[in-house]
């Protein structure tokens, strides 16, 4: 199974990619060379360079933020209440249609 995930760049360019269930949104982003998702630690929850803003209606449908992720997000580049690290979002059928905004920078 795959989920369609849309990334919207700061200049409003959109790209929708298909990510296989079980992979993280971050892995889907790097596999498709989505600009602005640096994902430097490769998904070890050790940086914050896969940070995205989740479209508001989607935010509450995601699994909750664990403390480790919360700590990194607090100091990510311009965090918002809808911030998430995409390495912590594992793709399931429920995520089909997910919309994410890529921040202007990553720290």
């Amino acid at each position, binding site marked *: 199974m795959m989920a369609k995930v849309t990334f919207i760049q700061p200049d409003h360019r959109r790209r929708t990619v298909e990510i296989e269930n079980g*992979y993280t949104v971050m*892995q889907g982003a*790097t*596999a*498709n*060379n989505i*600009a602005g998702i*640096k994902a*430097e*630690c*490769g998904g*070890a*929850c*050790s*940086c*914050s360079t896969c940070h995205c803003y989740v479209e508001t209606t989607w935010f509450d449908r995601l699994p909750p933020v664990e403390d*480790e992720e919360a*700590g*990194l997000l*607090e*100091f*990510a580049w311009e965090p918002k209440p809808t911030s998430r690290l995409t390495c912590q979002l594992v793709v399931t059928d429920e995520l089909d249609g997910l919309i994410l905004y890529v921040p202007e920078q990553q*720290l």
Partner: protein
Amino acid sequence: MPEVFAVVGAGHCAGQAAASLRQQGFAGDIVIIGEEPHVPYQRPPLSKKFLIGELPLERVYLRPPKFYRDNNIELLLDTRVVALRRREHEIVLADGRRRHYDKLLLATGSSPRRLQVTGVDLPGICYLRTIADAQRIQPHLRAEKNLVVIGGGYIGLEVSAVAAQRRMRVTLLEVDGRILNRVAAPVISDFFVQLHRQHGVDIRCNARVLRFEGSERVTGVICEDGRIEADLVVIGIGIAPNTELAQSAGLPCGNGIIVDEYCQTADAAIFAAGDCSNHPNPLLQRRLRLESVHNAVEQGKTAAANMCAKGQRYAEIPWFWSDQYDVKLQIVGLAAGYDQLVQRGRMEEGGFALFYLKDGVLIAVDAINNPREYMACKKLIPQRLRIAPERLADPTVAMQDMA
């Protein structure tokens, strides 16, 4: 004829550089030439989740093989480069074939330093740098068997943690007076010694290996103060940059391939990046060589940008991490040269941060289970701030208020 940008090496830096070349809009040919049979992959999991078997091989790959097809990036894997003919702009492969390049990126990485003692070539004695190395070690990580780890750096400690979790009997030998001597303060060394002892790892410092015993396979490690039973030995005593190719092509080298802030070598058509590069860093105000994912990724991007004539300088504060048991160590900056230490928080409270200061300026942090302090320092350290030690030490002062 389209322009050809070649990348020698197929590690993290090479993979990033190729992806970045496409992001920069380069439409010519890209070829990645690597000695290993794998598409560019991440090395950190090799001593962590991949080694313990929690991460399948395809998740270790930086990007799926399909990515390279989709982006028209040619992969020449299992292929060794034996020479560069700079005047002809040619790469010579081991089988004698030659490949043309217009611009070349050397992302040749580094190789484990070898221990030079009798018996070191016995089966069962391993280094850990590649997927093949990890796969060689994996079947021998068996409960009740004896593992001897040589070297108390991050690789040795991470392998020890994995093995202890597999209920092996682990002995770690460090030739220095303490583990992590080159990279961290004694507080951090002590913390990790305690952590590993709690998990049954026997850490011995000032322990010099004299030779290995065994006929078919290694069976023992002989030190100055006796013999240690061994079914498996993993050696992690540092890495050295792969500069032979650059050197034999007459490019200036010295603890790495010498590049400028644009990752450009003395030859304007040749760039070098990642573990193998000796580069200037304006934020650290010195030249250095770094062995880290962050450096591999960021230099890969810088080199790619400059191969596309974007004039981008490399200026990054290094960061690193290590996972051992349920402890996550996150590091920003380089601690070398510090003259003051400040601790914030205590392990009993779940985690702590150790700040390194030099002349009152915050230069580095080791954060243990403490992502907030770590992230805050990623912003603070590049600013070279003087921060009062008593404020840093006071957990009631928010990290947001330090600047």
